[in-house]
């Protein structure tokens, strides 16, 4: 059985704790925000480091452009807004002023995918991973729980590369043991298995572990691998999984186009073609509703993952 459980702490609180600890050590860290400080908790950072925090107001493009300038003078800027606005409203600034110019800006995008829930389709980023994956040098990381955030945040911050960090600000399900260390760019086998691989990210990681339980009940041994780093993707681990299990299901909180599923398909195609099924939003726009409603509507439950894995396995 899986050890998935709801975290007693809300992600944004733990995120700010971690960020404050980093900022104590590294005076280069500067936090930018575009009128969402009370939403994502960075207001606490502003209280602790008033001179290293700026709320620019509702102006994401200016914020990301400013981040590039801060990076140019040696700061480590972390620019915060909802993931949808990073991907859609400030993309040119991230691309040209940031990545193209070789400046390690750090973009922190909250409310990934269907966790935007009641803010509805306009606020539901289902393209952000794809958008940032298309920018050279850009790291694309999605933390799944507070443990993975605590381990990966320092690595993202200290990396000489520009980075996009996709993060929930709400309650999360924990899939790691407290204090577990993860390595940027390295996938993690959360559950061993030999019949089929489930490659998961974000919110769908816990669903995938539950799917593995369902599959176990049907006599199918599913390996669950967490890819917190979508770019660069852990090609070696993925190819090994494909070779040893013979089929791959991807599970992501994103459009199945251009996100983890696409990244996996690219690697499989080049390294080890095996049957593949992509679970996620099937090229639709987001809509308003609870996370549970959206998971059902978009076919993103553990049952959906299990059914896809079973079909692949039975047709091998």
């Amino acid at each position: 059985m899986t050890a998935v459980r709801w975290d007693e702490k809300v992600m944004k609180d733990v995120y700010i704790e971690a960020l404050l600890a980093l900022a104590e050590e590294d005076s280069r860290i500067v936090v930018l925000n575009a009128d969402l400080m009370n939403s994502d908790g960075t207001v606490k950072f502003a209280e602790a480091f008033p001179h290293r925090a700026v709320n620019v107001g509702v102006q994401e493009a200016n914020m990301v452009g400013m981040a590039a300038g801060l990076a140019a003078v040696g700061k480590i800027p972390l620019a915060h807004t909802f993931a949808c606005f990073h991907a859609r409203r400030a993309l040119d600034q991230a691309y040209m002023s940031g990545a193209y110019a070789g400046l390690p800006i750090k973009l922190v995008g909250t409310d990934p995918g269907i966790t935007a829930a009641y803010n509805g389709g306009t606020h539901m980023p289902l393209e952000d991973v794809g958008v940032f994956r298309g920018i050279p040098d850009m790291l694309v990381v999605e933390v799944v729980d507070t443990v993975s955030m605590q381990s990966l945040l320092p690595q993202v911050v200290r990396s000489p590369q520009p980075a996009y960090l996709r993060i929930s600000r709400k309650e999360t399900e924990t899939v790691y043991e407290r204090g577990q260390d993860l390595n940027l760019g390295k996938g993690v086998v959360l559950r061993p298995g030999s019949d089929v691989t489930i490659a998961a990210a974000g919110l769908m990681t816990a669903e995938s572990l539950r799917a593995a339980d369902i599959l176990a009940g049907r006599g199918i041994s599913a390996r669950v691998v967490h890819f917190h780093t979508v770019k660069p993707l852990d090609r070696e681990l993925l190819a090994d999984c494909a070779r040893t299990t013979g089929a791959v299901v991807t599970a992501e909180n994103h459009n199945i186009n251009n996100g983890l599923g696409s990244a996996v398909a690219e690697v499989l195609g080049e390294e080890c073609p095996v049957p593949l099924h992509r679970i996620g939003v099937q090229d639709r726009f987001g809509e308003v509703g609870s996370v549970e409603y959206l998971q059902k509507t978009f076919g993103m439950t553990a049952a959906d993952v299990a059914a896809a894995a079973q079909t692949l396995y039975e047709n091998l």
Partner: protein
Amino acid sequence: MQATDKREQLERFASAIRIETMAALGQLGFGHIGGCMSIVELLAVLYGGVMRYRPEDPGWPDRDWLVLSKGHAGPALYAALAVKGFFPLEELKTINQGGTRLPSHADRQRTPGVDISTGSLGQGFSSGLGAALGHRIDGRSNRVFIILGDGECQEGQIWEGALWGGNAALDNLVVFVDYNRQQLDGYVMDISPMEPFARKWESFGWHVQQVDGHDVIAVDRAIEEALDASGRSSVILLDTKKGYGCSLAEGKTMNHHMRFSKEEMDQAIHDWKIRCGEVAP
């Protein structure tokens, strides 16, 4: 109509919008209450006399267009539309529920009476300018009314639009800024002040007025003047209070998106009814 009759009629309509909005959000338990409350009187004036529309035929080609660029105030707009009969009042209970026609942010593909989809601040302004331009190109008489937030005006896109719109002299357009002095993280003055706000718009070539946004007659007169000001695009800065008329939100610093119980909201509705004289204290 006598001015007093008109005031009474518009205030009654505004009160209905306010109460329906509070009730809908109250039963949901959360929502953008502050920014909904501050535009209630404006909605009442627009839908209570100024705008041409047919509830039974939302796509009527000669209708006026309302663009709620601060799209998070959707629930207040839905309440106005429901009171006017675009859809049943009952439907307000579905706001934000899975499968609803009334999502948190205004959506032209779902809601009868909504012509432009909004939610990402700044964008409704440009879409509205485009709609006004399109009507002008076609020589049509439709008018476009756009509602902006003051925090929203921090977006660069607003000032791109202001530059273009000021030069374009759109006679069929009136832009409103809900100048409630607050945004999500607090007071506009503390985050990125807009003053001198009126002078900014003036310098971009706009016909500018600034009036009490909770005084229905003042708003109505300003709209009349704006529409009369031919050869200029018009903007009206509405001095408003975020959360106005909702005792659990008005006067609070953090009143953008709030959580509340149904009982708390029922109390706030009761407080409003006393305040506007609908029930005895």
